[in-house]
């Protein structure tokens, strides 16, 4: 975004020092990426080739057997649909719920609202595994086990999301809000037409973070889907490990195929990802 600004403000320094900077960064970037490169190379090897000592770098005969094994074992597309469906539900739901509550906490204080907000913050610190049993019982009592909503429901309510949205609204100037109110808008109209659009950067942040959590979740889908229906990709991938033990080419192929959808989304929308996460870290 501000690519050209630093160059203009430090005209003398840029050319001298960019070499060592790039050298360090390139080394670091290579270290970051090596695991992925190794993964991709291994996908095309045979099982006996990956266990060879010392390892070979380039696959001997570029076998695609690992993909065949993966796709014939894991119902990839239906799991992909489940992952995507629950992600959409969770993101839309959480963003809506958190924006409403965050706005009220920021702009409509009432007696006890600070205590209530403290309760939200306290829940942030509790390890999430601790909620599992209680959440499971609720989903069961709502007769939602094995359904798509069951995957998304606990994620709809997020203390972290509420906290972020409150921060966003706290930072906004009051003028627009008051102007709208003088025009006779009710609080929901003010929120919806005036404030929410201004909170777009934080909404994007929350969308990105919630989406990541939803896509990655392993334990909850396992527990809430006892009949094995509506299972997302991480579950299929974890099952693969149990079944193929150390058939690393197949495991690596599975890991690759299941990760790629989100990587593509990230590459396309990287600006939004970065802006989103940067926003979540800005002080309120």
């Amino acid at each position, binding site marked *: 975004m501000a690519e050209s600004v630093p160059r203009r403000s430090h005209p003398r320094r840029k050319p001298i020092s960019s070499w060592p900077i790039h050298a360090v960064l390139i080394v670091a970037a290579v270290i970051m990426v090596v695991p992925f490169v190794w993964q991709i190379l291994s996908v095309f090897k045979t*099982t*006996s080739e990956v*266990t060879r*000592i010392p390892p070979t770098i380039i696959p001997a005969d570029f076998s695609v057997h690992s993909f065949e094994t993966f796709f014939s*074992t894991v119902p990839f597309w239906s799991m992909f649909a489940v992952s995507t469906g629950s992600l959409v539900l969770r993101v839309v739901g959480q963003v809506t719920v958190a924006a409403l509550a965050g706005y009220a906490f920021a702009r409509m204080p009432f007696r006890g609202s600070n205590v209530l907000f403290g309760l939200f913050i306290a829940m942030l610190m509790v390890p999430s595994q601790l909620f*599992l*049993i209680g959440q*499971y*019982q609720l989903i*069961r009592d709502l007769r939602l*086990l094995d359904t798509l909503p069951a995957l998304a429901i606990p994620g709809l309510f997020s203390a972290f999301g509420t906290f972020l949205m409150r921060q966003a609204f706290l930072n906004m100037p009051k003028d627009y809000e008051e102007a709208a109110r003088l025009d006779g808008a009710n609080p929901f109209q003010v929120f919806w037409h005036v404030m929410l659009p201004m909170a777009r950067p934080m909404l994007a942040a929350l969308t990105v973070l919630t989406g990541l959590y939803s896509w990655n979740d392993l334990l909850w889908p*396992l*527990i809430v889907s*006892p*009949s*094995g*229906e509506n299972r997302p990709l991480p*579950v299929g991938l*974890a*099952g693969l*490990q*149990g*079944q193929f*033990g*150390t*058939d690393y080419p197949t495991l690596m192929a599975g890991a690759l195929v299941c990760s790629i959808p989100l990587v593509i989304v990230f590459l396309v929308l990287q600006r939004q990802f970065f802006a989103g996460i940067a926003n979540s870290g800005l002080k309120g």
Partner: protein
Amino acid sequence: MKHKWTGAMAMAVAATLLTACSGGGTETGSAGGTGAAAEKVTLTYANWSEDQSPAMEQIAAEFQKENPNITVKVQTLPWPEYWSTLQVGAAGGTAPDAFWMLADHFREYAKGGALIDLSDTVKSGIDMSVYPKAVSDSYTYEGKIFALPKDFDTNGIWYNKALFDAAGVKYPDDTWDWQDVQDAAKKLTDPAKGVWGIAAPIDAQGGYYNTILQAGGTIINADGTASDFAGPAGVAGLKFWADLQKAGSSPTLKQLSDTEAVSMFENQKVAMYFSGAYWALRFYKNAELKGKVDVAPLPQGVKRATVTSGIGNAGYAGSKHPEELKKFLTFLGGTKAAEIQAATGTVLPAYKGTQQPWLDSMPEFKLQVFIDAIDYSVPLPVAGNTAEWQGLAAQYLAPAWDGTKPVEAAAKEYQDAVDQVLAKK
């Protein structure tokens, strides 16, 4: 073939129920009393093996053919999550209707009232003598039967003929004793090639339980109140494995943690692997092992012995369709289900007389070894919270395996830890 009457009985029951109700397949009326069978009912049936799930599907389809009112959904859960998922479901009232059970987990479920009691169903016409007693006994709790044996397994020596040939060692056979294993393992080991004679992990069922029994030991006393790992037989049985480690005839524990023993065997890094019949199909299907693998009986110690166990098909006490569930479990325990498992080579079915198709499905393996072993088999030891004290084994026995503690000392510490678990409740 000979014992067809269980299946026949199931069909008779099905026929009675079918004629008793009208058209079937409609959501008619109340679910009260005998009319319940008229409804379309869906049962779920959980397992943890992708390898076996095709056969389970086939069994479910066969059952549905006979019971058009009942749909069975087979679900396969990943092994590491199977028990936690099942436990949460059972405690929460939503477990699958039917599921696989193992002897070491069974007691907690039976004690907690999570399993449907099959005693009456058995009384009304299931002959328990068709199952290996060691297996059916392990699914009996306080005199009640809670699961029908699905399959069983005894142990043998899986070995890689190519590696034996390369080292010029004679294949294992029923004359082998402990010393033969130690000697062969040593000769087969070739560090330069990254090949070891045997895999010696800390494995109870395929490993040290067998050798403790072969040394004349008992593992757990008759009333399940104390263990015996530190007695002379216990120590000897553990020492068998520690010695293999000490001689360098096996990959180290660390190597076996990185790459499980079975994978080492499949990758042709180890020549011998003591384990059960359940690997047969996996080895058979592995193209790289074609023509290289066979199986021999476990070696003799003071006597011959192998532990045996088997998966049981159990039902959930909280099932909404107990009658249909019992019918399905009966079918699972019957000949037809056994025959499907045998013919597909899936596992060694528990039902007596149905094993021949299994042997025939993989003629290259001397699978008869596993059936012959029934004669000297001993049930897998279970007592108290078995899963808990078994889970302690790796921690307490590892120092004996890697030589940092005398076997006697490690055995004593493990015994004390197990006894402490057994003393609870």
